[in-house]
């Protein structure tokens, strides 16, 4: 297992090289000059040339990429073209806020999505199932920024229960300011998880072993949780991990609507101002988050499905048998 994890972590290296090279090249060949964006309309020719030199933009693309990777290997993500502040500091400063928002959104999505999915499956074609199906469809189709604004108008402007934007300073204020963006983000994901749970549970409940469990006189609750849900969990874990990985990369729209100081907003601002180092830093964070969440999903499979765990074990055993054979 440890070897598998290590192998997967090592695989991150080519992934990151590929992603960084791809994004770096696209940004470099895009038909814009970052210096024009930074200095604006009134800049003199000397200022533009001076800035190009300062940013190393006169070097060939490959040289710039190699320099960038070399700096990256030394922990230097570069400085933002726009603010001249170190990108790594700015991302690390915002990342905990994004983790907080992503975690709360996932908790809402999982806590509501899985039970609703199970209930929908167990009461297929009932009123509850139909309402949940249509509700899920609406939630997935609803644009985040629209739902967010609607919630703000109702809960912040009209009812004055919650703050409309920003992130509070003390724990209670932070908690209050988390509610609306978490619901906004969590709603769409909840619908996906619910639909996935429903279809997965439906498939599992038709298996023979469920009938056997019931025939043995096991209580319905135990059949549902131990036999049905556990076997239906694999696709749910996959979708949850992918969604969480996505959220960790930052949710641009929601973070912008709620003025949440997270990585998503940082990336959006960077894209708007063609701030290459800031875009690269955000993309790297996004790729690493996504890959690690994928890996965690793979590891979790082993815990919920003994067959997968045994595959890891048998691979190890086979290797040790081979080793013994060679020794004898």
């Amino acid at each position: 297992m440890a070897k598998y994890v290590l192998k997967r972590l090592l695989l991150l290296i080519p992934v990151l090289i590929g992603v960084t090279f791809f994004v770096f090249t696209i940004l470099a060949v895009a038909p814009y000059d970052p210096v024009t964006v930074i200095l604006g309309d009134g800049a003199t020719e000397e200022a533009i040339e001076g800035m190009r030199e300062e940013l190393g933009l006169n070097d060939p693309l490959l040289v710039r990429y190699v320099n960038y990777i070399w700096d990256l290997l030394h922990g230097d993500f570069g400085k933002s073209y726009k603010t001249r502040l170190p990108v790594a500091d700015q991302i690390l400063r915002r990342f905990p806020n994004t983790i907080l928002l992503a975690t709360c959104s996932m908790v809402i999505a999982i806590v509501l999505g899985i039970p609703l999915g199970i209930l929908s499956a167990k009461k297929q074609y009932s009123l509850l199932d139909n309402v949940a199906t249509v509700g899920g469809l609406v939630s997935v189709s609803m644009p985040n920024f629209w739902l967010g604004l609607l919630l703000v108008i109702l809960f912040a402007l009209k009812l004055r229960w919650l703050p409309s934007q920003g992130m509070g300073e003390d724990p209670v204020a932070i908690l209050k300011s988390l509610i609306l963006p978490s619901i906004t983000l969590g709603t769409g994901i909840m619908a996906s998880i619910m639909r996935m749970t429903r279809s997965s549970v439906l498939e599992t409940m038709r298996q023979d072993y469920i009938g056997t469990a019931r025939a043995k006189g096991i209580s319905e609750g135990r059949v549902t949780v131990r036999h049905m849900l556990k076997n239906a969990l694999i696709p749910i874990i996959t979708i949850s991990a992918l969604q969480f990985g996505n959220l960790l990369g930052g949710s641009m729209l929601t973070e912008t609507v709620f003025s949440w100081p997270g990585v998503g907003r940082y990336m959006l601002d960077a894209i708007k101002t063609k701030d290459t180092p800031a875009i690269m830093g955000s993309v790297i964070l996004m790729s690493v988050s996504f890959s690690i969440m994928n890996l965690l999903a793979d590891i979790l499979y082993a815990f919920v499905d003994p067959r997968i765990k045994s595959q890891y074990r048998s691979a190890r055993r086979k290797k040790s048998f081979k080793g013994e054979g060679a020794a004898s």
Partner: protein
Amino acid sequence: MKRYLAFLLAALMLLSALAGCGEKKDPNGPSGSQGDGQPGGTAYKDTLCWAQASDVTSMDPHVGKETAAVTVTCNMFSTLMIVLGDEDPKPLLAESYQQLSDKDWEFTIRKGVKFHDGSEMTIEDVKWSLDRAINSNYVSYIVNFIDNVEITGEDTIVIHCKEPYAPILNNLSMPFSAIVPKAYIEEKGEEYFQLNPIGSGPYKLVEWNPGESVKLEAFEDYFGDKAQTKNLVMKVIPEAAQRVIALETGEVDIAYNIEANNLAQVQGNPDLVTLDEPSMTCYNYFFNLKKTDSPLADIRVRQAICHAVDSDLIIDTILNGTGIPATSMIAPSVAGYAESPKYEYDLDKAKSLMAEAGYADGFSLVMVVNDSQQRVEICQVIQQMLKEINIDVDIHSYEQATYINALNEGEHDMGFSAWITSTGDADYTYMPCYHSTQWGKPGNRSFFANEKADELIMAGRRESDIEKRKEIYKELNQVIYENCTQLFVCHPTNSYAMSKQVEGFILNNDGYNRLNYVLCRQ
């Protein structure tokens, strides 16, 4: 199934209706901070909160030149001169000034001015700061008229200009020419200064949470008019609608960058007030005069276009009335503004001019614009208007840098421009936009070359008597009008919204509002 769908839609409509239904505003708002009582019985907040769309790009006044940065830093740093509201430049860090010759100006510096770390500002700081600004890639264009700065006494400097330069006082009141502490920066380093800046302004920096907020506190030893409110907080709220909501809920007291479509919401709230001032920006279209084989090379065609466009209609519809029609690049609030003749909206005249030029059946042209939704919409309206005189407009919308490049290279027949006279002096616009040496990148995107215009531009730059300058610029406007270099649309309005409890807010046309006079009743 249909029933359930109807049920769900009804629930959604209920949520929307609840969100839309009115409720009386809570006068105490969630952010009602504790204030210190003021004499006279009125209690004021000790913290004033304002919202703006973007964060500070840099706290260094010689780097952060974007309006979003300067709205904060102009409260922390001081300049030799200052412009407040519609006033003329007046001394701030300078105690007095005098013009020694055409090119030389002497400034006597105020004594006893302290930086936020308690150290006293010296004449060395002033020279060093101006030199630093001249060498800055970001802001040099504001001070590059200076040849050198010479210290001539314990508290006097002489600024030697490269050539006679009348707008010097306006340029020295720009926050980009702020005086910074030499010893502090040399000791702590540039990077440290960027995050921990100190100036000699009415407020000092307490905390900067990039992307989130900036907190400032009144500087007790400020040499000028003391800050009325103890603490200032700037919150970054990128969404325009959210800025208005935050104002309505009382989370902020002032909201900058109010968009035209949110104005009605503010105006409908009896607890809020809006402040509008025509900005120093001009929306206009450069006709490309470099393309000699284009129908636009015929002045009658250009005049026909100007007569065919109804600017009032554009202002009333797309800008929701937030703007005034433009007759030249210079807004009325800019120093050196002079009247200019105007091509009135007259479709019949436009049609007859087209026929006279031999283009009664029309032709097609390329209009270049950036990807701003509002600007593209303006282009679309003009596209429809020009159809009336059989001109088929092909709109090319690019992202900002590509768009600027297209204009510089002369790809356009008509190129949209939103030029800002940043210094508040007409020379800042006339020189780059009309002088024959300034084609392309510097600003002359009509590729206009006219000896008379060149002479007048240089004369305006050299003339320090404002009335005489206005006469020169009036003549220059006539030359521009006669050559019909551009289609002038409007000067859009800068809109701010604030709580009615706010007092003493002075709106600057450049958007760099000094907040040391502002109070907010509890």
